[in-house]
């Protein structure tokens, strides 16, 4: 057996190891109920939940509450199955937060509260202008 072959076999073994470990570290997209179950089973893995901000009957966003010092806030998010959940985020309210169409929270449950480590927002017309301002003539 040539040395190169040994190196190759070792490299393939490492590659397989990488795939397994990466898959183990990979997060998944779940609903709040599934996330809650995971947390109650004692699994503290961070997961992704996709949803929208809660709106009242007039279509206005409700439930965004910054703390007095403005450096963290809670909000109410509705996931894809329709479940409402209060989410805490230990950062100031992102400026375009209320404009977001969709949000993804990455984090986990602690007791009854969902703690987001990170929030991804999908905002309309990001990077793209799709309307002409009226009145420019």
């Amino acid at each position, binding site marked *: 057996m*040539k*040395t*190169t072959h040994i*190196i*190759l076999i070792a*490299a393939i073994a*490492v*590659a397989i190891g*990488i*795939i397994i470990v*990466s*898959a183990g*570290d*990979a*997060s*998944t*997209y779940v609903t709040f109920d599934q996330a809650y179950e995971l947390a109650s089973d004692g699994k503290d893995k*961070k*997961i*992704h939940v996709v949803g929208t901000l809660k709106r009242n009957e007039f279509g206005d966003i409700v439930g965004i509450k910054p*703390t007095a*010092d*403005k*450096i*963290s806030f*809670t909000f109410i998010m509705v996931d894809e199955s329709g479940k409402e959940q209060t989410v*805490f985020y*230990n*950062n*100031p*309210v*992102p*400026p*375009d937060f209320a*404009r977001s169409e*969709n949000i*993804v929270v*990455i*984090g986990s449950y*602690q*007791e009854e*509260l969902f*703690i987001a*480590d*990170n929030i*991804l*927002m*999908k*905002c309309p*017309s*990001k*990077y*793209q*202008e*799709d*309307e*002409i301002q*009226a009145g*420019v*003539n």
Partner: protein
Amino acid sequence: MVNTFIGNLGHLFVVLTFVSSIVAAFSYFKATQHIGPAESEWKKNGRFAFFLHVFSVFGIIFCLYFIISNHLFEYHYAWSHSSLKLPREYLISCFWEGQEGSFLLWLFWHAVLGLILIFTNRYWEAPVMTVFALVQAFLASMILGIVIPWINLKLGSSPFILLRDAMDAPIFKEQPDFVPEDGTGLNPLLQNYWMVIHPPTLFLGFAASLVPFAYAMAGLWKKKYKDWIRPALPWMIFGTAILGLGILMGGYWAYETLNFGGYWNWDPVENAVYVPWLIMVAAIHTMITYKNSGSALKTSIILVIASFILILYSTFLTRSGILGDASVHSFTDLGLSGQLLIYLMFFTIGGITLAAARWSAIPTTSKEISTYSREFWIFIGATTLCLGGFQVLVPTSYPVINSIAGLFGAELSLATPADQIGFYSKFQLWFGVGVALLSGTGQYFWWKKMDRKSLVKELTTPFILTLLITTIILASGTITKFSYIALFTAGLYTIIANGLILIKMLRKNPKLSGGAIAHIGIGMILIGILFSSGYNKVVSLNRSGILISADQPTEFNNENLLLFINQPKEMAEYQLQYKGEFVEPRFKKGFVNKNDILKTRDPYTVIAKKDVVFEDRVIFKERDTFEIFPENTYYKIAYTNAKGKTFSLYPRAQVNPQMGGLLASPDINRRWDRDLYTHVSSIRSPEEPHEWSEIKEFPIGLKERFFLNDYIAVVDSIIRVPVVDGVALNENDVAVKARIKIYGEDQEYIAEPIFIIKDGKVARLPDEINNLGLRVYLLHIDPNTETFTIGANTRQKDWVVLKAMEKPLINVLWIGTLVLMAGFTLAIYRRYDEFVKMRNKNQE
């Protein structure tokens, strides 16, 4: 009037670009397949077609530049990427802000590189240019913008589309010739010199990776399995150097302006170019090994093909929209995913098929490699680099894996790990250790025949030196984490080992020192990353621990700090004070307090209310009219350190509805050993109205002192003004302005409320002093008693929330980058020289 001529001309050039590249590819293909007179005839045709191709690429660029620089807003490209007020130097960057333009940039570099290859090659011209012209045909098809009627398929997206064709706006139904007065502009965040130099550098790197691929294809095709390496090698080094420079420039740009928090975030778009770069580095090493010893030829072929395919794959990832929410900077989907996929598949399948067909014919060495040979160490090094790339590639491809699984009916919902940076760093750190150790040791094998005895002898000095320095550093207690100690030691080892080699080399033959210099650069980059990222310290950290609410037991340390205007706060070893909102003048250096200027109807033009002082120098006199950049607001933060030294930082925020609200850019206090990085993380939304208190009235006389919200104030003068901005005055109308001085904590402010009698009706224009949270009115004037009434209401004072970080030794990273580039440059020079010498001997 809509100028359709230039767009049609441009479009004609696009079609010509596409057609000529196909003709060139065909002719060069024929030339490669024939010998004798037919070959030179076909070659002539190929050259002609390629020259025509290059000409038409320049034609497209000319037309697009003409449209942008003449502000022809009837064209979608000019309207959506440029504006009248855009500074000249950024007109060029409008080019590549759009996706069509970035394809054009890529086409341009290939065209230039193709020309260079035609003029520097003899034997290789025809087969290499066949591959080049084919690639150009694919790229040109991306901007073709032609609908094939009978299958209703849109091929490419043209940059010469008229606004009325691109938009479904109702105005075009009434007025088909409507031309907007101004464009929507280049995103202000991108108005930065990096936007001028970063994309061209990156795309030159992409383009250069085609050259070795084309040579490899040519070598396999013409069964010249070995000879392609020599001409391809300088290009491989060049491509790697430029792509590496482009990547690092992107990192620096992200750090300095885009406020991604750091220079590298393991975002899918960043990963997509990092992986091919690693493979290119590995390819350089195996190619050099082949040149010196005849082994690793097959590996080189695989790596060269892989690096080009990975470049195409990265293009597919970033432009097909498949990354979706996974990335902060994916382009918008132009509906080119199908075309991009065909482009990727064509060269993947083509490259692999050709290599497979010739595989058994590729010569190999039967010689066993010894553990004491440099081939062995290079091979291990290349394997480490490839595995490092593989580790990044797999999670980055999760969205692709999910989609492929979806095609087979399986539902996968893999997401990248919650903590991306932590996840990738955990692995890449150890690959970094491996690379550093190997590049330190490998260099000794490189220059000498080694056996156990001489190895021990050679490695003793760097070993002892490294251990000595590491011990001293460890004793000082700076580094405690095991993995960090490993990376530090490995990085230091490669610097010392390569440094010792460099010293020897400089005495003997400085031309050969490129490798040693480049490896020193790598060591410095690793150490710079280790300290600046691993020991990145949040200085605005609030360690008191906050309870979210009474029934939540979890405590949080918050990394942000709330600052009210002019109220000092302590943070780590600094005292901070927020000093208000500033703007930047257009044609002068410095910052201007928003309270010191009067706005006019044109947002770009303002008038100084008083002398404007910046850093003890008057930059504008009272009543001066000057231009500003209205998109940017700078928040002045005054720092005082423990020794009483003061400095100010001006982090920036931009109200930018296009990009989603508000964008922050940091300001950095740079010292030799660390950067203090400050950015605004939240401000009051400018759209949200203030809550004002009830108005308070002050009946007073001229020069009489009174208290406005606890500040001493005095009416300095009261004058009649002939014109009021925004109000048309008749001869019977009167406008009077009061000039009120208010003595704030830190400076004197001027408020100029106006009282107007127009058509017998009274109007009052208040003036607002943001820094004091005050709005001042001139309510009444009593001409008989020469007294008047000033009204004022107050609001909550202005505030910002900011975050500050310290990044130690970040300069080692930047200097390391420059050292790496210097090493690459030397190596390119040396390898190109070798190629030219051989070519001139008519060997190639």
